[in-house]
């Protein structure tokens, strides 16, 4: 494995040379979306400059080139997450799309009145509201696994919620608001003892850790390309064949049908059954390039680097009087959420921005966990492979300025 060369990596991301308010950009909003390496931008340009075409049913050359590239990308992703079959990899437009697909389609097939679905108190709205609505529609019940004051999933409470009524467990791999890593392997094992399938919201998980869906034995795993250094507009729903085969399609039209008449329509096989309409070939090829780029560096090395940044930032922050770290799980990745005394996160964010530092403030689309801590929101710095220690020093400096201005 190559040594982790942060200088070289930074040079691969053109946006890092950008200035904001006369300062060099410090981009610490990676949990919202990641920046793109040149190879990903080039993949898009190449595609539109040389090979753009609609795919699948076309017999012409460009269509075949584009189809091959698209299906090769599916294989790249299959291998990256170690899915058993290529057709277990469904392309969506993102995590939200993937979870909505699942909530509808799994819901139609398996959820009935009186059933229960378990989520955690840490979920992003995209892994909460679809299940709320499904439960309303089917007169099922949503059960919430609480977290402790460190922001950790309470496993014992989870065990208590499991029952013969439970039809699905849907939890985040890593919390986007607090960075807590959930014990998904244990969760899956426990749920499987009762034959309950588990879906993992991997929007953050895939970014900060190696994911082997067969080893995890999760039944579904969803993630977005844009947080994984890939273009916007693509995501993945991995699902075990047995479920995907049984589930009805979600969207209709285009590639997902096989035979159509006015009386009767039959559906195409997997994965096409779940890929209605012209797919986003561009973004899929971009995702392919992003994953190859990550593989070239090594996800373990990336995780180790991000973890060092996280520890460094946390320690430095803690040395500032009045700082409150929100979420102090033992197992954490990628994200530090905090408050500066009684200063409103919006005030802090506005000032920090003027130093050219992009952090996020607010509830991070995870309102319930923010409400749990009885705070108006947090200031969140989130890390990617290209961040370095200097950038954290700049953040610390800005935080100190904020203190000065508001206290």
């Amino acid at each position, binding site marked *: 494995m190559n040594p982790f060369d942060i200088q070289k990596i930074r040079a691969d991301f053109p946006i890092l040379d950008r200035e904001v308010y006369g300062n060099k950009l410090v981009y610490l909003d990676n949990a919202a979306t990641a920046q793109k390496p040149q190879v990903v931008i080039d993949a898009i340009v190449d595609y539109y400059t040389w090979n753009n075409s609609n795919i699948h049913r076309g017999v012409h050359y460009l269509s075949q080139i584009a189809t091959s590239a698209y299906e090769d990308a599916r294989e790249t992703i299959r291998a990256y997450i170690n899915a058993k079959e290529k057709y277990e990899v469904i392309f969506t437009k993102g995590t939200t799309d993937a979870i909505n697909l699942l909530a509808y389609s799994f819901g139609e097939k398996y959820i009935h009145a009186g059933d229960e679905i378990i989520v955690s108190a840490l979920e992003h709205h995209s892994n909460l509201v679809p299940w709320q609505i499904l439960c309303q529609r089917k007169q099922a019940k949503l059960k919430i696994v609480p977290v402790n004051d460190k922001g950790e999933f309470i496993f014992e409470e989870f065990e208590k919620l499991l029952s013969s009524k439970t039809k699905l467990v849907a939890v985040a791999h890593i919390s986007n608001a607090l960075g807590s890593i959930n014990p998904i392997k244990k969760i899956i094992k426990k749920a499987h003892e009762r034959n309950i399938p588990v879906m993992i919201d991997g929007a953050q998980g895939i970014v900060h850790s190696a994911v082997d869906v067969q080893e995890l034995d999760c039944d579904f795993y969803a993630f977005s390309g844009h947080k994984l250094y890939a273009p916007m507009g693509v995501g993945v729903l991995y699902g075990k064949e047995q479920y995907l085969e049984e589930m009805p399609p979600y969207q209709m039209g285009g590639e997902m049908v096989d035979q159509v008449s006015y009386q009767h329509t039959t559906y195409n096989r997997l994965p096409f059954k779940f890929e209605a309409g012209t797919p986003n070939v561009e973004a899929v090829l971009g995702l392919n390039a992003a994953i190859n780029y990550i593989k070239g560096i090594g996800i373990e090395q990336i995780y180790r680097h991000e973890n060092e940044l996280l520890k460094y930032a946390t320690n430095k922050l803690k040395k500032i009087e009045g700082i409150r770290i929100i979420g102090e799980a033992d197992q954490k990745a990628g994200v530090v959420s905090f408050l500066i005394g009684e200063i409103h996160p919006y005030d802090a964010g506005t000032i920090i921005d*003027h130093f050219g530092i992009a952090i996020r403030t607010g509830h991070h689309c995870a309102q319930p966990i923010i409400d749990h801590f009885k705070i108006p929101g947090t200031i969140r710095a989130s890390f990617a492979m290209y961040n370095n220690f200097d950038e954290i020093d700049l953040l610390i400096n800005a935080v100190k300025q904020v203190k000065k201005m*508001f206290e």
Partner: protein
Amino acid sequence: MEVESIRIIEDQIIEEFAHFEDWMDKYNYIIEMGKDVPKIDPDLKTDNNLISGCQSRVWLHAEYKDGIVLFSADSEAVITRGLASLLIRVMNKQTPEDILNSDFFFVKKLGLKEHLSPNRSNGLVSMIKQMKLYALAFQTKASR
């Protein structure tokens, strides 16, 4: 006491801001202004007076009395409170007509572009909109 016209107060504020050398001075001033905002009666901190779509909660209240509009406001965030205070300094005690006719042009002159984006985290645009809505409501009421 005669109320100064909107344009005169706007010019005053623009003048004040012209002195600041950098953004930090500007924000320090806005923070300072936050202390001067006509504080809303705590009983009026209702959901009705809440301006939606801001990252910090902002309440804006208006009353119509003797042909002029009286504003009061509060926010959890100091900067938002400062911005509210600036707006109120200009629009308080003006007639609904004058408020409706104003293009809030001083706001553009202060170099606070970051608060003028369609970004829904920003209270400023929403506050201006809400002030105009109040003015419109009072005008309609008065003409009936």
